[in-house]
């Protein structure tokens, strides 16, 4: 029997599952421990937009009762989870970090939320994000930024800074993120956690409030690679409600994470995603991580993906184009914010729409809607949207060629460690460059993982390494990620997060 842990929030999700299975702890106790942790630290971190204490405890008790009745349960039953506020949750507010959806309570669950509930996983709450997932710092949330648990003056990454931070600050063992251009992987890198963007179509998008339909993908945010695989296994798989969902079983990710084997694995180092533009400490930790994998039996090959140079430009045409259309539905007619135009006695529906969108959307959202509207305009469509789609094709070709000689590709996840809040807020281009290494995977639909690679010597902040695999070969990410994690944990004598500051020394 697993010993009763003194602070159960420090366990990995896999360990929690074991403790629940052996009866060492109940789901109600485990869930309450996380709610207590949130009460202690989230004033400082601001990772949650909404905490559902009652709902989570009720779900936990229901699982405990089923376990007591010896009903068959999912392996993760009773392990709590946090969900990014971009996923529709029945009965729970869903704002996407925007004023325009303030107070909206969806009448339906996203498919992956249904799967979490069916697995018996209590939902702790909804995590903060850049408004409609547009950003790399969570500073574009209409409800205030999330703070990096490693340094509260720094950004936690974005758009899913809330999900990476609840995991990094032990407010949840598991969280759901979404990744359109790096919104799972980049926050994972700068908070010392693990984040996976599955193959496009690997996890249902039904109920994911779309930013860019052809790029969006939900995935796990966790503290270990195995935990990510366990969560991936719950939420993945075909969904008839999502036409773009892949009709195939979930790849064997849990098995790959457990085996953690890289012997013979060919790791392709992407020439275009190293060196110049990357912070020296980030590059150094990346090089060391690759060397460690070679010690464990991997081989290194260099690959070139010349079209990646145009990825950012193509991305910032495709994303705003799709977003400008996806966000048109927020018009005050059926749900969400409704604002009347000032000094108009009998406003028309169109005037209410305009006034509401003006008041309800933040500046970054407006910027991208205008960009996208322009890019799709007749006369510009071919030059902008059309050309961007061609670049997308070229990037996919680059990947295909690279995967002829490499089983996985590797690069630093983000070019820098976490920057200070406010540092790049007035410089959209600098902000966009955060996603330079993560965007190509979204454009090509291939899966990616970010795993901690250490702390940058110059600032002592977390750095991340990214692995990319061919579409539907997600298990390769888990094999490489878990092998590196094991090697680094050996070297460090424990997980990287053990060196993060304790946010509530008097508590827990």
């Amino acid at each position: 029997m697993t010993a009763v842990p003194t602070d159960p929030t420090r366990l990995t999700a896999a360990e929690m599952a074991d403790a629940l299975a052996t009866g060492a702890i109940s789901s109600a106790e485990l869930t309450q421990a996380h709610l207590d942790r949130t009460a202690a630290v989230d004033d400082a971190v601001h990772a949650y937009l909404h905490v559902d204490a009652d709902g989570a405890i009720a779900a936990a008790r229901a699982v405990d009762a089923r376990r007591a009745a010896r009903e068959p349960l999912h392996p993760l039953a009773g392990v709590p989870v946090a969900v990014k506020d971009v996923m529709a949750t029945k009965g729970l507010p869903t704002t996407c970090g925007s004023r325009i959806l303030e107070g909206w309570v969806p009448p339906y669950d996203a498919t992956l939320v249904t799967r979490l509930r069916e697995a018996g996983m209590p939902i702790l709450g909804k995590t903060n994000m850049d408004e409609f997932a547009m950003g790399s710092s969570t500073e574009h949330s209409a409800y205030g930024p999330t703070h990096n648990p490693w340094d509260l003056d720094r950004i936690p990454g974005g758009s899913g800074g809330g999900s990476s931070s609840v995991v990094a600050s032990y407010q949840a063992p598991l969280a759901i993120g979404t990744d359109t251009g790096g919104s799972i992987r980049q926050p994972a890198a700068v908070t010392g956690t693990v984040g996976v963007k599955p193959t496009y179509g690997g996890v249902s998008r039904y109920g994911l409030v779309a930013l860019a339909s052809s790029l969006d993908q939900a995935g796990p945010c966790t503290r270990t690679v195995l935990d990510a695989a366990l969560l991936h296994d719950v939420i993945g798989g075909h969904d008839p409600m999502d036409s773009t969902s892949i009709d195939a079983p979930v790849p064997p990710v849990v098995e790959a994470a457990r085996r953690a084997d890289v012997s013979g694995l060919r790791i392709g180092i992407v020439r275009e995603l190293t060196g110049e533009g990357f912070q020296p400490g980030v590059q150094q930790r990346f090089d060391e991580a690759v060397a460690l994998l070679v010690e464990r039996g991997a081989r290194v090959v260099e690959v070139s993906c010349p079209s990646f140079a145009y990825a950012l430009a193509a991305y910032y045409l495709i994303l705003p184009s799709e977003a400008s259309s996806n966000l048109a539905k927020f018009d005050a007619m059926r749900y969400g914010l409704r604002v009347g135009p000032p000094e108009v006695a009998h406003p028309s529906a169109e005037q209410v729409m305009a006034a509401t969108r003006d008041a309800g959307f933040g500046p970054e959202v407006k910027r991208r809607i205008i960009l996208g509207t322009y890019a799709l305009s007749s006369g510009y469509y071919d030059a902008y949207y059309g050309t961007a789609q061609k670049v997308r094709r070229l990037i996919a070709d680059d990947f295909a060629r690279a995967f002829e000689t490499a089983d996985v590709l590797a690069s630093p996840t983000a070019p820098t460690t976490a920057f200070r809040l406010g540092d790049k807020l007035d410089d959209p281009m600098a902000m966009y460059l955060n996603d330079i290494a993560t965007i190509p995977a979204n454009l090509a639909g291939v899966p990616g993982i970010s795993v901690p690679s250490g702390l940058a010597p110059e600032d002592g902040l977390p750095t991340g390494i990214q692995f990319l695999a061919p579409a539907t070969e997600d298990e390769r990410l888990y094999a490489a990620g878990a092998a590196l994690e094991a090697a680094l944990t050996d070297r460090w004598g424990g997980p990287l997060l053990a060196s993060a500051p304790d946010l509530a020394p008097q508590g827990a």
Partner: protein
Amino acid sequence: MTTTHVGEPVLSFEEALAAYDPVMGLEVHVELNTATKMFCGCATTFGAEPNSQVCPVCLGLPGALPVVNEKGVESAIRIGLALNCEIASWCRFARKNYFYPDMPKNFQTSQYDEPISFDGHLDVELSDGSTYRVEIERAHMEEDTGKSLHVGGSTGRIHGADHSLVDYNRAGIPLIEIVTKPMLGAGEQAPEVARAYVSALRDLLKALGVSDVRMEQGSMRCDVNLSLMPKGSTTLGTRSETKNVNSLRSVERAVRYEVGRHAAVLASGRRVVQETRHWHEDTGITTSGREKSDAEDYRYFPEPDLVPVAPSRETVEALRATLPENPATRRKRLQSDWGYSDLEMRDVVNAGLVELIEETVAAGATPAGARKWWSGEVARRANTEAQDVVTYAASLGVTPAHVVELEELVTSGRLNDSMARQVWEGVLDGEGSPTAVADARGLQLVRDDGALEAAVDEVIAANPDVAQKIRDGKVQAVGALIGQVMKATKGQADAGQARTVILERLGVS
């Protein structure tokens, strides 16, 4: 606010035609009769409680995603095939972006440069016996919008209304938009061609069973584009788009009106404005709607939430095999089989009796009998009840078998024609089958020779003068005696038989 629509100056149709050639383009929207909507599982029943047939998908709730209704795609392909179109082996949906309160997502999921079917034609017959070939540009799939109800104000239009209510039951119902190529060369027959095309299209869609095609319920809606070309010119003029012309008669009238209006504008040296126009059924005129410039930009792009539609050749050929006979061909075949005159066939078609007669003939009736019984009293009663004959007959429980039975009663000699009419009325009154009615009413031609002879003898005895005339060779006087015999037998004698017996008795046969 009361609105009176002031008509613009128009030239007479004849004057207009003397100087210009009309060019038409028709856009017809057809609601498919699939059980569920195009992109979700909601029901499509007409007339349901407002907003009772909605879900996250068709309400455009954040996060919801569309899934294509395979039945809708099948119907689209069958329509394309019936219109002699090419069927795309690969095509996509596209988003048509514009803001409108009754459109939940503020984009319509439609098709743009990759329609499911394209380059077809439909031949329509005109009253002079000629045929006009309407070239079809494309038939593409899209979804319908919701419906707004403007409350307050007097006209039901948005101007002057206090507020508007939106019913999203219609949002997401599958639509096929069928667009013709410019229709040239119809000349003075243009209004008739337009009507004949919409009528032929309606028949075709009905025969395909893909739509209710009820123009009055909006399941088939027509926009008429019209421009004029000066005679001898080959340059197309500026067009107007008259929206929601929703009856066959209106299609004809709208074309006629717009020809006259355009001609008046051009004759006065002004330019036709490219605009949408509203059709007014009551006054038969169009009025200016919003001006439509080419700058209107729907920012179409391929719908990223849906995968391409790629019907295999086998699927297309299997669907081709399900196509019914073309309605016009079928009509010609039936007319020839049944031996009807053109007039008789037209009446039968207009009364919607073709299927009923076909069934009745198949059940054993003669084509003439089937036509006679279904188009007489039944049609008159159905008309009084404002119902179509088929629905009316079904509501009475009257079937083709009844017609067959009635005809047999006549051919077997039990009933004569006037008795058969009485029996049919009894059947329509719900008194039972023809035999049961005839039994109950005691209707039966007199076959007992004894009874007939007795009646003849009585009549001869009572009319010695007439009898003598006949003996003297004025055989035509026999009619007076037959009448008396019929009267004496209460109409149940066979008149021919009575004549034979009288002449026999008088020794002139």
